[in-house]
């Protein structure tokens, strides 16, 4: 069994991570030498092992561990694949190389020695064992030098230094209308956050709304940073939100569509996700608030014409939200129940129903000024 050094994930150096991988392989070797079952332990993920901490307001993994046993036929293939990924990742670390999850998939998409069968059949297989491996050595993926597709952008007055790109320094108002593209790896060793005059960070679901607010110079008139996630926030974006909040002391205000999907995006930014529950401490921002869209906005701002029908899938999702512990507050229960009662949803861009300036000049300043938020 892998003996872990009692050290927090975030502090691990590349060398230490590589060391842990080697230790895991050595432990298995010793098991086989002693003719014991070749096994390793990894944390159980999924609903059954996710806990919500009422105090920190974070999702976290419980302490269920499970053993992968090569000799158990249900585990055999994954066991092999985990070791194959282990070998690859150790190579990356030792050679200071990085690869995306898709690149790892293609690296492993080769026939097994003496067989026509491929080591991995599809990317889902390699993705799954990557997560197993992270948890087996108690690290996070970024420390394995595995990258994800970058998604999201940042605009506003802040200096950024990218250590993986000639240590270039930018101000995020000077690199074009689409802002600074958030990379998948925003760990401190890669990205340093410099000076900023902003008073808060506004996180926006859609790139189109981000566009609208950039064009209206909202960052300037309201002294804030603007960031878009383009749907569910990628890990890089979430990690960046977390760092901006903690290192630059910026309050985080989230602005999504007024429907169960938008609210889920908010809850992931705020409390973490079930799939990546073990990362919440590094990526989630429990102090975040939602400025909108809420169901009450429809009446308050007379947006009845702009609301849309709540489709069956969204209705089902809304009902699920009602049961999540992180949506148990009175305000949230009211909002979701109202959504179900009305059978309606409202998009951010529905605010254009008033006029194109309405969101930047009226809706956002008014609500933020008066702190009309959902918790």
């Amino acid at each position: 069994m892998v003996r872990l050094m009692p050290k927090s994930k975030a502090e691990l150096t590349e060398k230490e991570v590589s060391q842990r991988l080697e230790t895991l392989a050595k432990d298995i070797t010793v098991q086989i030498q002693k003719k014991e079952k070749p096994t390793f332990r990894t944390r159980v993920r999924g609903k059954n092992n996710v806990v919500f901490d009422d105090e920190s307001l974070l999702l976290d993994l419980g302490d269920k561990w499970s053993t992968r046993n090569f000799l158990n036929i249900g585990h055999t293939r994954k066991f092999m694949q985990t070791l194959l990924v282990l070998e690859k990742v150790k190579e990356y670390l030792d050679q200071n190389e990085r690869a995306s999850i898709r690149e790892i998939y293609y690296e492993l998409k080769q026939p097994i020695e003496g067989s026509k069968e491929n080591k991995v059949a599809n990317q889902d297989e390699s993705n799954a064992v990557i997560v197993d491996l992270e948890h087996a050595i108690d690290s996070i993926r970024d420390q394995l030098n595995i990258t994800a597709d970058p998604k999201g952008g940042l605009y506003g007055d802040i200096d950024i230094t990218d250590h993986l790109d000639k240590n270039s320094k930018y101000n995020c108002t000077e690199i074009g209308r689409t802002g600074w593209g958030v990379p998948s790896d925003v760990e401190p060793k890669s990205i340093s956050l410099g000076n900023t005059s902003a008073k808060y960070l506004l996180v926006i679901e859609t790139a189109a709304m981000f566009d609208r607010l950039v064009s209206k110079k909202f960052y300037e008139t309201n002294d804030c940073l603007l960031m878009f996630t383009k749907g569910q926030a990628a890990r890089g974006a979430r990690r960046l939100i977390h760092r901006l909040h903690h290192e630059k002391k910026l309050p985080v205000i989230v602005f999504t569509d007024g429907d169960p999907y938008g609210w889920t995006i908010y809850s992931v930014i705020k409390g973490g996700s079930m799939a990546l529950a073990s990362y919440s401490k590094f990526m989630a921002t429990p102090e975040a608030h939602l400025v909108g869209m809420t169901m009450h906005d429809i009446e308050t701002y007379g947006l009845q014409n702009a609301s849309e029908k709540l489709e069956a899938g969204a209705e089902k999702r809304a009902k699920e939200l009602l049961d999540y512990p992180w949506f148990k507050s009175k305000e949230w229960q009211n909002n979701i129940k109202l959504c179900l009662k009305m059978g309606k949803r409202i998009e951010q861009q529905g605010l254009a129903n008033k006029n194109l300036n309405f969101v930047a000049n009226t809706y956002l300043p008014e609500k933020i000024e008066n702190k009309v938020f959902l918790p």
Partner: protein
Amino acid sequence: MAEGQQISTDSIFKEFKEYSAAEFFKKNRQMLGFTGPIRSMTTIIHEYVTNSIDACESGGILPDIIVKIDKYGPDAYEIMVQDNGPGMPEKIVGKALGQLLAGTKFHGNKQSRGQQGIGASYCTVYSQITTGKPTHVITGTDEGLITEMDVSVDVKKNAPKIENKKTYKGEFRGTKVTTKFKEVQYTKGANGPLEYLRRTAIANPHCEIKFYDPEGARVTFPRTSRLLPKLPKGVLPHPKGTTTDDLVSMARTTPARKVSSMLKMHFSRMGDTKLKEIQQQIPFDLEISPKNLTWKEAEDIVKAVKEIKFMAPEMDAVIPIGREHIEKSVLKIVNPEVVYTSDRPPKAYRGGVPFIIEVALAYGGGAGKGESEETSSVEILRFANRVPLLFDTGGCALTKAVNSIDWKRYGLKGLEKLPLTVFVNISSVYVPYTGAGKQAVSDEEEIFNEIRFALMDAGRKIDRYVRGKAREAIKAEKKRTLERYMPEVVNVLVNVAKANKKEMTQNLEEMIIETLKMDESDEAEETDEIADDMDGEINAEE
């Protein structure tokens, strides 16, 4: 003569007086299984072969039967059946082949293949009426004498006519019957002579049967047991098994002077106490002459018998084939991968007729209908007192019982397509056929249920086998999987942890074999709970 129950026994016997028995059956040949050319052919083979086997058994001889069918013209066949039995004196030849209802089996309450002593003689009649030819018989007894003769039936008198008789010295022992027929047809199918003989061989492991078909091809069904079946003991019928019809015909033929003495003479478990109990329940005097017994009075007696308790019937009148014999012959002739038999004691139906059910389930290999295991479908072999029942499949309690089983529960899913042969034999002194053709057993509740129990008994055994087989296949697949993935694991350990390749490989190979040995008990372990509900957990957020 179950159909006789509808016609009424009285009328049959009345007709016997007016016509002869031979004439009667000439007009009612469907009652004897002569319906259509294909079935008539199989019936003829059946009559001769059962006579031959019975003759051998009663002489204590292991039967060697030869059957030869020649086609000598369109729709015209010559059929030859030869046995190695004790042979027959001339008088017996005349009775066996030249007179209807004269066989040795008609009286006496024994389990036997034929029951009425009509069949072989009717073949003689059938030959006469379709070809005009007599039946040629050669028979040799243990005195070293061979007799040859032509036999025909004087239909008006129901008496044998012997012609061209020759007697000479010779070594041949047994009987050889050669007869020409028209209005018969040879078929290779499930209703034809070959299949009939195959099934006869399966249910009679002590027989060797050689068959030459019209094209000259020879098939031999070998003997798999050298043990002759016990000769059935004649036991008096149990009162509970009797019917009004039985009583009426008994009254016509009994030598007894009173009904009371008739009952005592012809039934087991019938003492003075029981007669008194019957007397108390009926409105007429049991001392009357049997000749005067009316249908209504017979009915009253049967009704009374139903309400009275009798000692259970003697079970030793029923002689099963025996599990080990069935297993051997099925293995040899059906050639399956495996065969399982039931193990059930005799039972009684209608409260007093003893019977025993034997069942075999043969699986895989040559079992089932069809050329190969892949194209196979279930085959049901029905037997009554070891005689194959080829016709009236749907109306038979044996078929219905087989179809009533939920075979899925015994690991046999999709019965229609399985390489499975189901063997069912009912042995009884009195098999309740649905008709005089004797091809289907009627739906007696006790029989139906007993067949089901026997099938379930054998089914449980086959279930274990089929499951075991599936387990073996899974094991082999597991071994292949482990061995396929092992070298990759070893490579990583060599590259990352500087492991010794040879040591890793050797140890893992040993462990794989060990694991598969112990595997059977802990299959539940093989679920992967680590990320069960997290399909695509990476992509969900990227």
